[in-house]
């Protein structure tokens, strides 16, 4: 019996596992798992959480200790104030102790520099251990809500707020209907986005636009709206949805948008040397107004990347284009045509190098309301922008009317184009303008002086000529003074009949 039992026992041990061994070691009554060190899932999670918290605490403690040591080291080196408050800043302390005379001040300054450099060294050595507990904190804080909804960016939240504000202004059934269809559609996009390609998403979005447009035109709750109101509703829906799902839809991971962005960016960077003249653009870059407008138009192009909704991005393109027409207006009276417009737009793109150009144009093409792109003004400017980008991508020697050699020399940086005055900032630009104005004034001043001198010389010569002529005249016709012979006149001469009627001349009378 004892033999059999001993014979059986090892057999039992290999094949039979006691129920007690399967249960959670914590004794909570649930089954445990070897992978969780014999604990059940719940206890295991609690244990690891506790462990992690403890780890964080010890890390924090360690970090604090290191920090204190480091402080102590820094202050200890100065031989004073071993218990310095960790937050008091050193410059204040130095000024506080400055009363001790110049020598002491100098010495302290030296010490302080040494200490701070040493502290820096220590800090950089320990930076890893200091940073890690901070990092550990974030997951610990978010741990209680592992299934929290995806974080909305500030813009998305603002867009939601703005959209709900907008809906409040509409009548109740309309607002409810719109928000319902938008919410449904947004959820649908989010759930299927992982599984389907961007082209299918585009199709879904465009179909949604068509559906919602049709609904607004035909459904009875929207009856009584004007065409403009309907258009604004559609615009607002587009704005809201696209801003909300911008992160998923802009430059998506399953396309090569990002590579293309980089490619075009590098391409533009390589083409920095292209001047407006080479493109056949009529630009007076020296003109202050023109250069200001150029900067403004460039800013608009760059701004495009910061806007979220396609309609807002298009707005940037339209504004930029309008500024280009203002630029053209400075040099010509007639309305500008595409012949003038396109070269300048290309030039601006080369100068501005707007970020994520390809992604932005793709985003607009994919998710803008198609009617806007097809016939509207924004569509025209957007198309022209696409043309400009294509031109930049395919640019070669012939498109700049350069020879192949010149082109490759420019590309390799062997030669530089004749640099026009490149305004780096407004002040510098004004300085250039002032310098040229002063130069102009100086030239004019010199010319004036020269002319004045010439004039005075001329006057001198004239004076001499006149005087010599006078002299000559005088010498050729000398003044001959003739003797003036005075003939005595007899006043009392009898004039005969003429004086007959006159009274007799008065005779002086002697008065006593």
């Amino acid at each position: 019996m004892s033999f059999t039992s001993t014979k059986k026992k090892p057999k039992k041990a290999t094949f039979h596992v006691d129920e007690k061994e399967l249960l959670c070691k914590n004794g909570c009554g649930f089954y445990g798992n070897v992978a969780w060190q014999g604990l059940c899932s719940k206890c295991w999670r609690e244990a690891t959480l506790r462990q992690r918290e403890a780890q964080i605490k010890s890390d924090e403690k360690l970090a604090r200790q290191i920090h204190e040591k480091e402080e102590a080291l820094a202050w200890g080196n100065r031989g004073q104030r071993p218990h310095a408050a960790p937050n008091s800043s050193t410059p204040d302390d130095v000024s506080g102790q400055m009363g001790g005379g110049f020598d002491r001040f100098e010495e302290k300054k030296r010490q302080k520099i040494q200490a701070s450099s040493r502290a820096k060294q220590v800090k950089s050595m320990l930076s890893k251990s200091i940073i890690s507990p901070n990092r550990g904190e974030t997951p610990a804080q978010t741990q209680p809500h592992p299934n929290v909804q995806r974080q909305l960016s500030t813009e998305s939240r603002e867009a939601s707020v703005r959209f709900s504000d907008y809906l409040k202004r509409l009548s109740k059934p309309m607002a409810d209907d719109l928000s319902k269809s938008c919410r449904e559609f947004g959820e649908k996009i989010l759930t299927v986005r992982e599984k389907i390609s961007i082209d299918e998403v585009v199709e879904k979005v465009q179909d949604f636009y068509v559906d919602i447009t049709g609904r607004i035109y035909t459904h009875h709750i929207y009856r009584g709206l004007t065409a403009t109101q309907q258009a604004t509703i559609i615009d607002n829906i587009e704005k809201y949805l696209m801003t909300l799902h911008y992160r998923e839809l802009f430059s998506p991971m399953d396309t090569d948008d990002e590579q293309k962005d980089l490619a075009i960016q590098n391409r533009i960077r390589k083409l920095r040397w292209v001047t407006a003249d080479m493109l056949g653009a009529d630009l007076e870059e020296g003109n202050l107004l023109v250069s200001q407008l150029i900067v403004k138009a460039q800013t608009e192009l760059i701004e495009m990347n910061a806007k979220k909704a396609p309609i807002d991005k298009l707005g940037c393109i339209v504004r930029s284009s309008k500024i280009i027409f203002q630029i053209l207006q400075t040099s010509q009276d007639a309305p500008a045509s595409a012949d003038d417009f396109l070269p300048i737009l290309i030039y601006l793109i080369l100068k501005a190098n707007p970020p994520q150009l390809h992604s932005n144009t793709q985003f607009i093409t994919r998710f803008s309301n198609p009617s806007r792109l097809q016939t509207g003004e924004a569509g025209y400017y957007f198309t022209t922008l696409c043309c400009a980008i294509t031109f930049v991508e395919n640019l070669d020697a012939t498109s700049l009317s350069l020879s192949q050699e010149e082109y490759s020399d420019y590309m390799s940086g062997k030669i530089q184009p004749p640099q026009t005055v490149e305004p780096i900032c407004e002040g510098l630009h004004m300085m250039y303008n002032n310098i040229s104005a002063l130069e102009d004034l100086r030239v004019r001043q010199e010319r004036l002086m020269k002319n004045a001198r010439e004039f005075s010389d001329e006057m001198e010569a004239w004076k001499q000529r006149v005087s010599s002529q006078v002299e000559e005249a005088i010498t050729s016709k000398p003044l001959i003074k003739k003797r003036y012979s005075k003939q005595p006149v007899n006043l009392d001469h009898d004039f005969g009949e003429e004086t007959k009627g006159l009274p007799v001349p008065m005779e002086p009378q002697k008065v006593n």
Partner: protein
Amino acid sequence: MAASSSGANFKVVLLGEGCVGKTSLVLRYVENKFNDKHISTLQASFLNKKLNIGGKRVNIAIWDTAGQERFHALGPIYYRDSNGAILVYDITDEDSFSKVKNWVKELKKMLGNEICLCIAGNKIDLEKQRTVAVADAEAYAQQVGAKHYHTSAKLNKGIEEMFLELSKDMLESGSADFLGGGSTSSSSRKSKTVTIVDDDSANQNTGGGGGCC
């Protein structure tokens, strides 16, 4: 959007070499002015004109294109999804007419017969300096299925008529975008099919038409 709900929207591209007078032509049509200092618009690259044809409201968006040789390759981006094209040449400049032929070939290749074509021989006020023969131009237009017009922006001749006829053609061909987004996707999908025109036979025909020169 607002306009599309109440009528038809058409996109018309304007193609032509640099100095053939595209800008003058369209400004004469939209503003009825020629070389005028008091033109209200800053630009002539994108203009709208509203028409009423047989009780139907029609909105034409006229897209100017850059005509310089260096931008020639960009043409397809401009005339994508357009309903009509006006090809302008200068009757005193034979080169500009051969450019028109190039564009026609391209348009046919890209858009097939979905686009209504107009060929405008501009500057007929300079009839005395004409180098492009009327018969040649008209024969060519007929051969490619385009309508030919003799225009002058300076004298305001033929322009109104050309745009009106083009609008009627576009209405008839029914490629109008009546409801904004509605028909767009289908029309853009349709235009993806490429019709290939046999260039050689077209050339031979042109040669036959203009055999005298």
